[in-house]
């Protein structure tokens, strides 16, 4: 890995740390502000349910039961392909445990594609999965 790439990785790692700190405190405590973190035409995929556009995402998350996330693992990489040349784009992978009101604590994994818009980082896509989302026996 050359120095230029090392720098990118360094910046990407720092951004991932700052970003997730802000994201999880927002989603747990200040949900009404969360929409601002997304691009206008951003995408949220919540356990396989797709929601597009900032306002719809904000509403979807507001309607979820109150949450307490505990972030434990964080990984991130810069995307350096020609396809995004000139456009800073980072992949972020986060994992930990979450407790939604009245639900048992469960492991979750979440992936973001964030991209620089002006001097602000915005979420282009956000993919959230409770680790065993598909293994829970349906109660109907």
């Amino acid at each position, binding site marked *: 890995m050359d120095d230029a790439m090392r720098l990118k990785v360094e910046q990407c790692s720092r951004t991932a740390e700052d970003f997730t700190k802000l994201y999880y405190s927002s989603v747990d405590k200040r949900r009404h502000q969360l929409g601002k973190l997304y691009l206008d035409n951003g995408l949220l995929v919540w356990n396989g349910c797709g929601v597009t556009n900032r306002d719809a995402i904000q509403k979807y998350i507001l309607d979820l039961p109150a949450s307490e996330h505990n972030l434990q693992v964080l990984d991130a*990489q810069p995307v350096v392909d020609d396809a995004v040349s000139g*456009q800073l784009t980072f992949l972020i992978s986060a994992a930990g445990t979450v407790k939604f009101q009245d639900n048992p604590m469960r492991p979750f994994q979440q992936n973001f594609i964030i991209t620089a818009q002006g001097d602000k980082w915005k979420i282009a896509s956000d993919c959230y999965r409770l680790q065993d989302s598909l293994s829970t026996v349906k109660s109907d």
Partner: protein
Amino acid sequence: IGFDVAEQTTLPPAKASFLCDAAGADVVRQFIEQYFIIYDSANRQPLLDAYHEQAMLSLSVASNSYQGARLNNYFDWSRNILRMAGDKSRHIRYGRLPVVSFLSELPKTQHDPQSFSVDLTLFTPKLINFVVTGVFRELSKKEQYGNGNPDSPKIMRSFQRVFMIVPMANGGFCIRNEMLFISNPTQAQSKMAFKPRPAEPIQPAPAVPQVAPAVPNVVTSPVVDEST
């Protein structure tokens, strides 16, 4: 008379897959099929063809085990930014050869395709991003090397892989970025692992067909918004 302050406490039901663009279904399905056939085989070297010359791969491991077998086989290679001092590029495999030799060192596996959930979050002519979540089991020493205790316990793992793939000149695709996450399964996952379940084929979510054209603009020409 009370106040209407009751909050929602149930979670929306989960779906097995989301496709931001129906056109991506075949590409993703084929890619996943081919990738895991090789990954689960005795020899992972053929994966060289699946990675870009400057591919990047990192592995991260859940920091605490919920239950089940220790994750010792993976911890030494785990990249967790929250616990990293110094050089942040440590534990990133960069380049086709380092990536595949690293993958070859990881325990041999058998994945359970029925456990997979697949989320396609970006589908453009130049860049495709999708996330695969599911379970695999580690092969026993007997299965790997032909010796060892045949009754050794079957170790189950939960995993998530994020793939960023790009088209190649020959019409195929190769991996530009990959992040692999490994943890122990929850009880619910262990219970359902490798058991048949009702088929829920990968199909587009009809409610949001407009996603695909929107996102590519974001990634390729983000400055447009500013000028308007």
